């Protein structure tokens, strides 16, 4: 009855997303609502989950050290924003017979496809030459490409250049959350497929994988392109939710942030990446609540120190738990282990 279970899961996910989305609107969901600040955090968490899971496919599972993910996010964001600005209104008008919401969703879905394709194409262009390099060199090249992408976009006047670019706000939390889940499901299925085994074999030992007949270049480029496409989707959703784009949002500090998410959560763990995305988004916000401390007439505002404390937590995490919170474990594995401990042996298949 696994199909029944799947349909149930899908219905449940849609219901939860719908309710959350309704709660974010000004009217609220039967009187209960989430304020703007909290809903923005939820949106960022969902977008960061897309970014972290997709980078995890490249870094965590394939073992290719890419630190330029924000560049592909920028590509997706700007390409789709340009599309929505130029064609968005006319498409909304021609689909207006479906009603306002549906027409907007159609535009958003097309924009997502556009963003994903352009980002994937860029991933291919960047990936084919650079994936010949290994380790630190690959990291530097991806960082360089991301910066070049950003600076080139900054110099295109059609997308606003240095003044920024406004985008129609088509993406609500329903779509963002849905695509976060789609990303998780797709990456999870890739990782657990034959191709996923090939990717992990490249991470474990590239030479051995090649000797075993894995076409390493091809798999590496494929993983890179898929990861870039999802980064592009994250960019599309960010653009259409934030309603304003500036290249400063895609500086390499953003790429570093995504790396921090997957390393904190545990490289090569999908639940780890999700956990990392949540922690990295929420922790600086939670640190805002730190109280002021007055010592001998000298007041220290700890809330102003929150980013310093965040950096310290990062360093300490790396020192005491270098494999990240989950390592390569998934949450599911941990539960299974508990269950296994409860049951007597022999009953397991």
């Amino acid at each position, binding site marked *: 009855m696994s199909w029944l279970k799947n349909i149930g899961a899908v219905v449940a996910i849609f219901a939860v997303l719908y309710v959350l989305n309704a709660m974010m609107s000004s009217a609220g969901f039967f009187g209960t609502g989430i304020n703007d600040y909290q809903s923005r955090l939820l949106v960022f968490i969902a977008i960061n989950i897309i970014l972290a899971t997709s980078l995890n496919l490249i870094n965590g599972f394939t073992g290719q050290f890419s630190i330029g993910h924000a560049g592909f996010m920028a590509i997706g964001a700007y390409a789709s924003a340009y599309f929505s600005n130029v064609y968005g209104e006319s498409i909304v008008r021609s689909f207006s017979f479906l009603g306002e919401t549906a027409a907007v969703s159609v535009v958003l879905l097309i924009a997502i496809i556009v963003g994903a394709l352009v980002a994937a194409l860029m991933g291919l262009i960047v990936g084919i030459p650079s994936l010949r390099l290994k380790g630190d060199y690959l990291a530097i090249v991806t960082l360089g*490409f991301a910066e070049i992408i950003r600076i080139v976009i900054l110099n295109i006047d059609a997308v606003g250049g240095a003044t920024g670019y406004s985008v129609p706000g088509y993406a609500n939390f329903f779509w963002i959350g849905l695509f976060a889940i789609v990303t998780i499901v797709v990456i999870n299925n890739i990782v657990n497929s034959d191709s996923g085994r090939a990717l992990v074999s490249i991470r474990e030992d590239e030479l051995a994988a090649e000797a075993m007949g894995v076409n390493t270049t091809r798999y590496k480029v494929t993983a890179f392109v898929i990861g870039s496409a999802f980064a592009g989707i994250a960019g599309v959703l960010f653009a259409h939710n934030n309603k304003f784009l500036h290249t400063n949002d895609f500086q390499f500090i953003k790429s570093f942030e995504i790396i921090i998410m997957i*390393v904190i959560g545990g490289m090569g763990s999908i639940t780890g990446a999700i956990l990392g995305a949540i922690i990295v988004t929420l922790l600086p916000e939670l640190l805002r609540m730190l109280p002021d401390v007055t010592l001998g007439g000298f007041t220290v505002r700890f809330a102003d120190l929150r980013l310093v404390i965040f950096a310290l937590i990062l360093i300490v995490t790396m020192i005491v738990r270098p494999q990240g919170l989950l390592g390569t474990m998934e949450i599911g594995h941990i539960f299974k282990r508990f269950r296994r401990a409860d049951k007597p042996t022999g009953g397991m298949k």
Partner: protein
Amino acid sequence: MDTFVQQLINGLTIGSIYALIALGYTMVYGILRLINFAHGDIYMLGAYAGFIIATSMGFAANPSAIGFAVTLVGSMAIAAAVGMAIERFAYRPVRKYSKMTTLITAIGMSLFIEYLFVFIFSGTPRSFPQLLPNENITLFGNATISTSQILIFVVSMLLMFLLQWIIYKTKIGKAMRAVSFNLNSAKLMGINTNFVIAFTFALGSALAAAGGVLTAQYNPKIEPLMGIMTGLKAFVAAVLGGIGNIPGAVLGGLLIGAAETLVVGYGGYIGVPSTFRDAVAFAILILVLLLRPAGLLGSNVQEKV
């Protein structure tokens, strides 16, 4: 011709600063295979240390060569101490872990220094006092060179020769070369590798701080985030010259500096607007890495099974 010479002089000025910072990157990478992302922030820290020394000791009020020398050496000493502390408390505990872990630690350290300085000094730029009289000297036509540019050339040249002397003529330099060749063998030969690594960090940080003070003499605006882009470009310079290679870092720094200003000056003729200034370094980097991954002066290492 005048403008070309002028651009070249300006480019080599920035290039010398990049070279000073690149030396720290390349030495640390040579020994630990670690990209020390916090190194650009040490450059910023050096500028601020110089700022505090110069204002608190009154060198700002009456500029003199001695005041400049004290500021320079003082900020180098402070940066060296900070560099050693960073190595001891952040990098040494993670040294044995994977590359990703050490890289994240370095990024964390970089963020820590940046945000700490934003907290202490606020994000608003400060104006670094002029410690030596600054005049423009006309070379020929419209090409001029300022005394602060000469200062940058002379001081950075001296520091690079000093570094060369330390690495090739002293005992600790020999130990550094041994450790960068093979850390474990060096340890077996009785070299105190922890001390050598700490010394390398001190040396690199001091050079970066010198770069910070010198830049501040040329361009007096200092701010807590000034080290990010400069540090990244210096790192690119180190890779361009061949990372781990000391003359390579200097060559890379000068090339990046020159390329950058030449693009600003002449890029318009070949359809590259001057706003691409920051992209030039990365474009060069990508070309070099794809065509000659070991860098200009680096030697190719054959991969072994």
